């Protein structure tokens, strides 16, 4: 079997698991402010893990694309440490806050620029806005078969076989390559990248290519920004804990009274 060429799309986002105290909402500016470290979106990490495993099994080459106004290579170099062969940053001032369609268009431009590929892997959705659209739109734009919610991916002579999560379990779906697959967390977490490995990757004199909208042949006018119509702070989640004392009978009685009071 010839070695396969995999493209993984990875989005850089503020840590979605950041403590709530680090998240605030500016309702006037319509902004969610997350004061947390930048990370790779968790589902995209799952996609990368799936890619690395495919490479470990049958060999191949992995290219990682990451798109944004400014992408931190210190965050994205983790993909190289995990086993990706190439990291390409898609950076342009016009890439700020794009909607899903425009994001897919820019990514499609980059993938066409790369040329040959067998698989495009994306996370099932991004960990910040959870839209879950870019992957499927991208598949459409590339006019390749598209399978979403993959929990297991294997390659069999020219085809890709995917176990796709459905509410009752999974379906086994086969598609001709090249294909696009959106990857779900069941695939497994990205392997741990030790700090030693990471530091080596940082120190390594490796130039990371950066492509602009112009390089991708995407006209700035064609890019749409995501528009928010309304944004408000979440309601006060303060909890008031009341411990009900007494014998089981008394406790039950008091608890019932509390419920009645709430009605």
């Amino acid at each position, binding site marked *: 079997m010839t070695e396969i060429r995999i493209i993984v799309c990875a989005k850089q986002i503020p840590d979605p698991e950041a*403590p709530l105290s680090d998240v605030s909402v500016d309702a006037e500016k319509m902004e969610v402010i997350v004061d947390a*470290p930048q990370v790779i979106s968790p589902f995209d990490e799952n996609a990368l893990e799936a890619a690395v495993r495919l490479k470990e099994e049958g060999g191949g080459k992995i290219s990682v694309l990451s798109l944004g106004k400014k992408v931190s290579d210190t965050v994205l170099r983790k993909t190289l440490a*995990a086993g990706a062969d190439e990291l390409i940053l898609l950076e342009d001032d016009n890439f700020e806050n794009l909607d899903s369609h425009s994001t897919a268009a820019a990514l499609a431009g980059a993938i066409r620029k790369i040329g040959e590929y067998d698989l495009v892997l994306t996370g099932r959705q991004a960990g910040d806005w959870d839209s879950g659209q870019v992957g499927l739109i991208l598949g459409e734009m590339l006019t390749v078969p598209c399978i979403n919610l993959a929990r297991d991916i294997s390659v069999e002579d020219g085809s890709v076989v995917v176990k796709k999560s459905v509410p009752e379990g999974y379906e086994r779906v086969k598609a001709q390559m090249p294909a696009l697959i959106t990857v779900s967390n069941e695939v497994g*977490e990205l*392997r*741990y990248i*030790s700090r*030693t*490995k990471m530091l080596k990757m940082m120190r390594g004199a490796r130039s990371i290519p950066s492509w602009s909208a112009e390089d991708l042949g995407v006209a700035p006018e064609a890019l749409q920004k995501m528009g928010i119509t309304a944004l408000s702070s979440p309601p006060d989640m303060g909890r008031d804990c009341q411990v009900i004392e007494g014998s089981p009978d008394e406790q039950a009685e008091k608890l019932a009274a509390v419920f009645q009071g709430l009605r």
Partner: protein
Amino acid sequence: MTPHRVMFWQIENVWIFYVLAGLATGLFLAGVVAYVTVWKKSSGSLEIPFSKEALKRMTLDVFLGRRVLQGDIAAGLMHLLIFWGFLSLFIGTSLLAIHHYIFTFLEGTAHLIFSFGLEVGGLMLLIGIIWALIRRYLQRVPRLERRLEDAVVPLWLLLAAFSGFILEGLRLTVEQPPWGVWSFVGWRLSGLFSPAGAECLYPYLWWGHTVLCLGFIAVIPYTKLFHIMGAPAGIYLQGASKPTVPAMEEDAGEFDLGDAIFFDGCMRCGRCVEACPSTGAGEPFAPRDFVQAMRQALWQEHFPLGDIRFMGRKEENKMDENLWYCTTCRACLEVCPVYGAAFEVVSKKRVLAVEEGTQIPKLMNQTLEKLFKYNNPWESSKRKRGAWADGLELIDLTKRGAEADLCYFAGCTTSFDDSAQVIARSFSKVLQIAGVNFGILGKKEPCCGDIARRVGELGLFEEQREGSEELFDKYGITEVATSSPHCFHTFKNEYPETSFRARHYTQILRALMADGKLRFKKGMEATVTYHDPCYLGRHNRIFDEPREIIRAIPGISLTEMNHYRADSLCCGGGGGRMWQDLQGEVKMSEVRIREAEATGAEILITACPLCLIMLEDARKAVGLKEPFRVMDLNELVLQALIKLKIEY
């Protein structure tokens, strides 16, 4: 006629004996060479540092059997009997060889003493072996395994010793020497045979005995008997090699000579299994099995023929999963006769697992990510660090111009966990009452690196260590008090050189007490029991300070649990276990809380944030109700001090 012994009495073709002896020695030496080869290959060097203390300790341990006696007198006496019995027979045979080949001296009185000595030695060996067999097969001591070699080795030795006595009896039956009574066992036996039969039987039995004894020598390197050499070597090396400061070196996860010899010196006595709190809670980890698996792996990797122990069996290879159960509590090292630190071996294997990346349990993987991103294992915001101090009006040492005599390092868990914050708040109040000029690092307080170190993420540990050192330097901090024994241990033992002195809060409280700055008055009346945190007690030998503080509080009486001081059980929170969800039959903390309950004490005192959380959770889980409580030592001290203030 002077008492003497006829050599090779009734034996013809003595040359066969020399051939057999040569063969046995050859096999023995070949085995030893194999060991040395494996040691050299696995550790890269055979460099052995000289240390007088280590030599002394080894000699005393070997000849007095101190480590085997410790904690199990029956096993120790049994071992001493076998050891001295075997040794005196070995020395006796060597003397006889000198007498025969070099110069004749075993005549007259010397011969009588010699004969008597060998009788005693043989008898000790016999009794020791029979006792050993009884312990293993009749008494069925739980920590002992019953593998094939566990039966073959003692039976072999038993047969050799027994046939020796019979042989002597036969010889004395025929010779009837006037000094025969000095060989008192053989002399008794001699009455059982007829002289003609004895003379006829003797040569056959002699050859049998010879084959058994020579075979025994040959088989030493190929069975657990190798501990005869491996154990002393291991004891020496554990004492002689310098404790290594972990660093991000290339070989950080590799075994060294001490490890390799420890594996080969282990004879599966199982004391570690008995002591291990993880094994005790029904978890799949057992230090002995782990060490044996490591031993076998080393041989398979570094010796062309694989494991040299022919009666060995395939060790279970689930070690990659079981690796994460160890809490690094050090209980195994306390009881190991060869001072083997199985928990350190676990740490080394974790370094390799972390480098490799795919074998780390999911939750640990996430914890490590958080530890790096947030510089604490609780995924808490830096801004919340120091929030425990709100309203206490403490000095923030990171503010311009702030100075204090002592820096209180609360630590991640004490800072962020709601139930552990009580430690920081009560300790601060105690310091305020005692008039200590102290400050905290507030939002800038870093993680000491304990978790990264224990879990094997040495790169992260290195970064955290450097970060902490820089911070302490920057603010000119020279005295540090920690809430956690883990931070204390890491600062004290795993930061190579520091410009500050780290102490645990129990040491600070004890010093304040000695200076008369803490004066307790009679407050509450209660019986309490004290749980030794592993990293305070076993790792740093601080057993007395907390107990002295507790005893100094009027109205409080201290009672001990079944396991205390160096023998204490682990709460299950150390070594990164706090941030994993591994399951055994029961929780270690629940085993411990039951022990505390059994003392009849109303309060369980501890001196570590991890222990406090684990034990308090266990109290709730097993449903122990008021008045039974789990408290940090600071809370108890503060209560006694506040009483004092009120009474003024």
